[in-house]
């Protein structure tokens, strides 16, 4: 079942078209990544899904129901971690989560349980009486996540949750995203850090100037650029090797040798590095160094748009 359906959605701010006839579906159980530069239209899209902005044209459905007609239903099923941290500095961590969960209609002992559960999930149970004033950026962010998940939404939207925080908190957040997904949540994750997106997302949409320019799994996206990956193997000079043997390894498309450097091009979907190395070792060839070159999402973005993800 599709948890989110966006159909021909356009959003204009005056003359400026922030989102341009965008269509997209997210299936239940995915971690869906929005990848794009600042100002590409990621946050605008998310704000429209959350019901904070109204689209000029098109339709957005959550679990098959139009969000403008069933806004209550939609809001109950969405949890949002906004780009700018939204917590009250004058309330304790516990009170913050309780407040936000209370907005969704949770009451009494259920409310208390859920709040404790959410705080425990983000690793802040020991801090539940402290005020966020003294928290680090990462802790504030985690508290913000707790606020968004206490009502157990089916779809969690995280808008750049790792901007401006320390690496440790970042790892913690990435892990909790994976954990939430294992627990059955669908997650939409936006970022302009392609490593993060590459690591956790099962499907990715590359957005630029309000349009989806490419969409698919990481492998599909990389396959846009090329379907070969190259491995350079430096061996001891003056060695003689049988290139035909390497050529016959499954997935290998071409083998070239220049002086003591072997270049093996093979199909990107085949993992044959072990076999190649094994083959060389069996022939008693001494390997000096090894370098693999395959496209990453950054190269995909750069090739498609001519701009780097972090230019701006």
């Amino acid at each position, binding site marked *: 079942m599709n948890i989110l359906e966006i159909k021909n959605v356009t959003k204009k701010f005056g*003359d*400026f*078209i922030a989102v341009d006839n965008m269509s997209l579906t997210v299936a239940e159980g995915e971690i869906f990544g929005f990848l794009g530069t600042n100002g590409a239209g990621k946050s605008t899209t998310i704000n429209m899904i959350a019901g904070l902005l109204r689209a000029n044209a098109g339709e957005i459905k959550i679990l098959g129901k139009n969000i403008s007609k069933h806004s209550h239903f939609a809001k109950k099923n969405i949890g949002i971690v906004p780009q700018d941290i939204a917590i009250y500095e004058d309330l304790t961590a516990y009170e913050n989560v309780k407040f936000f969960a209370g907005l969704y209609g949770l009451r009494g002992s259920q409310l208390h349980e859920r709040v404790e559960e959410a705080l425990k999930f983000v690793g802040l149970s020991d801090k539940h009486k402290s005020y966020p004033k003294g928290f680090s950026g990462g802790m504030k962010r985690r508290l913000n996540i707790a606020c968004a998940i206490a009502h157990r939404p089916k779809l969690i939207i995280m808008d750049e949750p790792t901007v401006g925080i320390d690496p440790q908190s970042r790892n913690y957040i990435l892990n909790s995203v994976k954990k939430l997904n294992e627990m059955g949540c669908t997650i939409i994750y936006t970022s302009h850090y392609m490593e993060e997106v590459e690591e956790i997302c099962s499907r990715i949409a590359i957005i*630029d*100037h309000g*349009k*989806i*320019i*490419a969409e698919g799994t990481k492998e599909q996206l990389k*396959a*846009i*650029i*090329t*379907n070969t990956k190259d491995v350079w193997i430096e061996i001891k000079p003056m060695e003689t090797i049988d290139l035909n043997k390497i050529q016959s390894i499954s997935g290998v498309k071409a083998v070239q040798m220049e002086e003591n450097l072997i270049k093996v091009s093979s199909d990107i979907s085949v993992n044959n590095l072990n076999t190649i190395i094994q083959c060389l070792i069996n022939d008693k060839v001494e390997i000096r160094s090894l370098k693999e070159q395959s496209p990453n999402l950054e190269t995909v973005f750069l*090739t*498609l*748009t*001519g*701009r780097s993800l972090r230019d*701006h």
Partner: protein
Amino acid sequence: MELLFILNKLILWLYICICYLYSNHISTPWFVFASLVYLCINMSIYIFKKASLKKGVVFLSIALILLSSFHIYSFFILLLPINLYELSANHVHNKWAIFTLLLFPIVFIPNNLHPVYFLTACFNFMSVAMAERYTFRIANLEDKLDTMRRDLQRLTKSLNEYHEYIKQSQYTLQLEERNRLAQEIHDQIGHSMTGALIQMEAAKRLMDIDHNKAKEFLQNAIHISKEGIENIRITLKHIKPRAEQMGINRVKLFIEEFSAQHNIQIPFVCKGNLEVISPIQWKIIYENITEALTNAMKYAEATVISIEIHVLNTLIKIEVKDNGKGAEKVTKGLGIIGMEERAASVNGTVIVDGTNGFSVTTLLPVNQ
């Protein structure tokens, strides 16, 4: 607009009538007479078509207003601003100048009428000025709608023409190919076959008389046949023109011409296997490049426009990028919309970026 003027006048006139009824009326017949004349004159303004006649009638109305306000009932002066507006609107374009003109008569009228006159003038001015603005806007929008409609018609027409053109050129191409094949068959195969046939006939006759001679003739026939077959193969290879040669040459030719005409540098780079680009995609590429180049020439003030066709694994990327002034905010004109539509017809997209120079990138999927 005219309706609004009439309405304005009517409201004021009714107001004056009511005021008159509540005052100690002295000369009712004259008041009624003046009112009727005023209504007649003001209705007749809109009957005339000629501007000078209209103006004359407005003058008449103003004279009547002045006369009746001094001799019959002072409130008649309230009808003055709207007539003044009518008179001046065609000549004075500054709104505030008109407003001061409307207020000017206040100097000559009795003190007790000042506030009412001021309010009337404001009321008239505001309602009419606002209405004018909206009519202007509506006219503008209608204009735009008209242009769009014309463009739509033009586009549909050219679309139809393109379909026709494609059909036509397909047919011509077929004919040409057929002709060429016939010619080649005649020249190559016919020739060889006849040669071989003669040799074989000779061999048949000599078979019983001179065995060795017959063998030689047969060998000749085999040679000729072999050559013939080889020729056929070569011909067939040469006959088929490759799509990418036609497409790329067309693009190159256009770029060279454009570059020479406008005295601008246009570096052109192709990467990847161009053979995967289909003829229809070449057509889109050609049209988008021409459009983007024309746009760059018109707006960018650039010195270099670089063009790149890059065939990736599953996508074809065509980028036209200039080093001009770019645009912070890109507003889509018909040109860009046209490029988008063309790309969308083969499931492609167009990205327009104005942050660093101006670039138009067309992405088309490779047909598998």
